[in-house]
């Protein structure tokens, strides 16, 4: 720790310009991380009372480094009450200028921290990192990163706590050799009577896995990586066009049919009109307007009425047939859950989440513990954006899971005594209560693909109902589907008997009684 010295104006100038030059000559990237650190510290320690450009409880801090000397500022920030007591003139003056509100001492900040904060108060933006990769290209760092990813990242992050503590710059606070021994086998190290090892073990409830398979060189590279850290990836990919809806909404195909019919009708009436027109001409009466003939021709009138009646009937029955058919039903869900991201991009099996499909009538909506299996460590969305959502939106959607279960993502633990709130998903596929449908006998026994009934769910960002789920739709499938009887011992005798009875090679679900009322309607 530096002591506060009295300086002559000249040495002050020399010192500060030297410091400035020193800071400036440090590679830009290094300095900028300092500013970032300063910003972090400022927000954590100072922002309760200070703003950069405005007075809050304390004065505005922008440009404070031009007004006051750095050493004085460091001492002041560390222990302002002490300075006032010790009779520092400037300190007393500042104290009185600010309504005699004492500033809180910050003894926990190191000199370097304070320099960083002061650097931040200069108000310069944190510039995007100017290619820090150039500063030192060591292949060992890259190797170390690989080793970190495969071995350590399950429990550690470079920045921020996961199961274990953060590892960035761990090399600053622990000795090289100790770290190596610890990583190799922390239990052995503790057993050998190492004090620090025991302390660290006691401080963290989770036991660290030993890594005897890592060679010395591996450890060396790993530590290099810890010291240098990551080259921050450039902004996450912006929008992706692949998120378009691939499946058009199902419909009757009304418009094409209608168009063709109307065209045919017009053509017919034209022909009729043309022929009648000719006849009039032959009878040498005055030549009439074609349109007029068309309008007053009794045959065409008759035809029109027939057309309108048939068309009306067609519309009427079409309308009747779509009552209570919910094809395309797409309600707004409480969380923007995307099947396309989970089942499509990440290729998670359908049954991972809908695990009860294999044993139960109901293929349930997964409970939030299944979400948390992965989202304990995935608290940010990093994939391609879709449906006009921003990254913030999607991060917020993940936050909704945490709000439901009470997970503190900074501390990486469940909040104690949190009242969990169930996520109120909106059910899309609804059968009337008088129909019995059982998932397990279709999924496990018949081995149907999920997509057969639910459509290409892995391409749907927002889930919608793909099949009509009408009785005709069920029956159609039962008539066509041949039951696989080779594996299932239950069908051993039945198959032979039924095949003989119907005189067929293979038996469909319908022939096994899959169309009987009682099978589905009790």
């Amino acid at each position, binding site marked *: 720790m530096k002591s506060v010295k009295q300086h002559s104006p000249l040495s002050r100038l020399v010192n500060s310009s030297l410091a400035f030059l020193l800071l400036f000559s440090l590679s830009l990237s290094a300095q900028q991380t300092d500013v970032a650190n300063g910003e972090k510290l400022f927000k954590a320690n100072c922002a309760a009372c200070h703003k950069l450009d405005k007075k809050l409880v304390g004065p505005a801090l922008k440009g404070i480094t031009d007004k006051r000397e750095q050493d004085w500022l460091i001492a002041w920030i560390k222990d302002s009450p002490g300075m006032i007591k010790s009779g520092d003139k400037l300190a007393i003056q500042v104290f009185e200028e600010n309504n005699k509100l004492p500033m809180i001492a910050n003894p926990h900040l190191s000199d370097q921290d304070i320099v960083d904060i002061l650097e931040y108060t200069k108000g310069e933006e944190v510039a995007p990192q100017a290619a820090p990769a150039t500063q030192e290209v060591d292949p060992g760092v890259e190797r170390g990163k690989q080793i*970190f*990813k*495969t*071995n*350590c*990242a*399950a*429990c*550690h992050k470079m920045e921020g706590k996961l*199961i274990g503590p953060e590892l960035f710059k761990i090399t600053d606070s622990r000795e090289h050799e100790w770290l190596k021994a610890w990583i190799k086998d922390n239990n052995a190290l503790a057993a050998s009577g190492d004090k620090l090892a025991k302390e660290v073990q006691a401080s963290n409830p*989770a*036991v660290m*896995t030993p*890594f005897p*398979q890592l060679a010395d060189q591996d450890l060396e590279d790993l530590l290099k990586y810890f010291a240098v850290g990551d080259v921050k990836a450039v902004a996450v990919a912006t929008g992706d066009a692949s998120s378009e809806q691939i499946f058009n*909404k199902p419909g009757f195909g009304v418009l094409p049919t209608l168009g063709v019919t109307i065209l045919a009708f017009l053509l017919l009436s034209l022909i009729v009109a043309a022929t009648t027109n000719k006849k009039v001409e032959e009878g040498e009466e005055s030549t009439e307007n074609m349109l007029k003939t068309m309008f007053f021709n009794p045959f065409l009138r008759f035809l*029109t*009425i027939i057309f*309108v*009646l048939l068309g*009306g009937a067609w*519309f*009427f029955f*079409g*309308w009747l047939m*779509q*009552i*209570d058919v*919910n094809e*395309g*039903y*797409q*309600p*707004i869900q409480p969380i923007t859950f995307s099947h396309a991201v989970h089942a499509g991009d*990440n*290729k*998670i*099996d359908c*049954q*991972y989440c809908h*695990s009860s499909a294999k044993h139960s009538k*109901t293929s*349930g909506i997964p409970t939030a*513990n*299944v979400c*948390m*299996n*992965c989202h*304990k*460590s*995935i608290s940010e969305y*990093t994939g391609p954006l879709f449906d006009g959502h921003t990254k913030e939106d999607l991060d917020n959607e993940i936050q909704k899971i945490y709000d439901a279960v009470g997970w503190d993502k900074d501390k990486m633990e469940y909040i104690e005594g949190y009242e*969990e709130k*169930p996520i*109120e998903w909106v*059910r899309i596929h*609804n059968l*009337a*209560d*008088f129909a019995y449908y059982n998932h397990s006998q279709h999924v496990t026994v018949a081995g149907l693909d999920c997509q057969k009934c639910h459509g290409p769910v892995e391409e749907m960002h927002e889930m919608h109902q793909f099949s009509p789920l009408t009785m005709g739709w069920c029956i159609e499938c039962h008539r066509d589907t041949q039951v696989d009887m080779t594996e299932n011992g239950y069908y051993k005798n039945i198959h032979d008997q039924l095949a003989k009875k119907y005189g067929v090679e293979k038996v469909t679900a319908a022939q096994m009684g899959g169309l009987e009322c009682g099978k589905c309607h009790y």
Partner: protein
Amino acid sequence: MKNILKITIALVFLIVLSSCWGDKSKPNYQYMPDMYKSVGYETYSENPNYSNGMTTQLPAEGTIARGNVPYEYTDTNEGYETAKLELKNPLEISEANLENGEKMYNIYCLSCHGKSGAGDGVLVEREKFLGVPNYKDRDITEGSIYHVIMHGRNLMGSHASQLTTKERWQVTMYVQQLRTELLK
């Protein structure tokens, strides 16, 4: 004649108008829904009778359903160590068990641990999850595998809600098989 024409046109127009089920975010209308809505409370439905509004309520603590055996090793490091040493697979190693184990593994474990168990699943390749260990790098026994599926460990969550006891043992069996192959 003209009247009839007008009436038909009006009718058709009306029907065309009403035939559109426009708002797909709401269910279609129904005609006399006599037995459509369940009288009883269905699985996963809302239930006004309970304070948390769910039909699914937790069973009383300490009760044991028929056919289930409670798992006695606790979710602690000691529990893990004892399970690792003591716990043995009650299933015999058979083709059928391994086959179903593989099926379950491919659903519940593949994403992270990879096809061969080398820690190279899709999620790892896409860098969603990092640090998934290779099975050969870890000193795991059937007891410890089962224990981890049951309770989870560190970042891996419990998969007890997704797999039955038997399936967990089958997966354990399959994981051991993968490990012996990796160790070769």
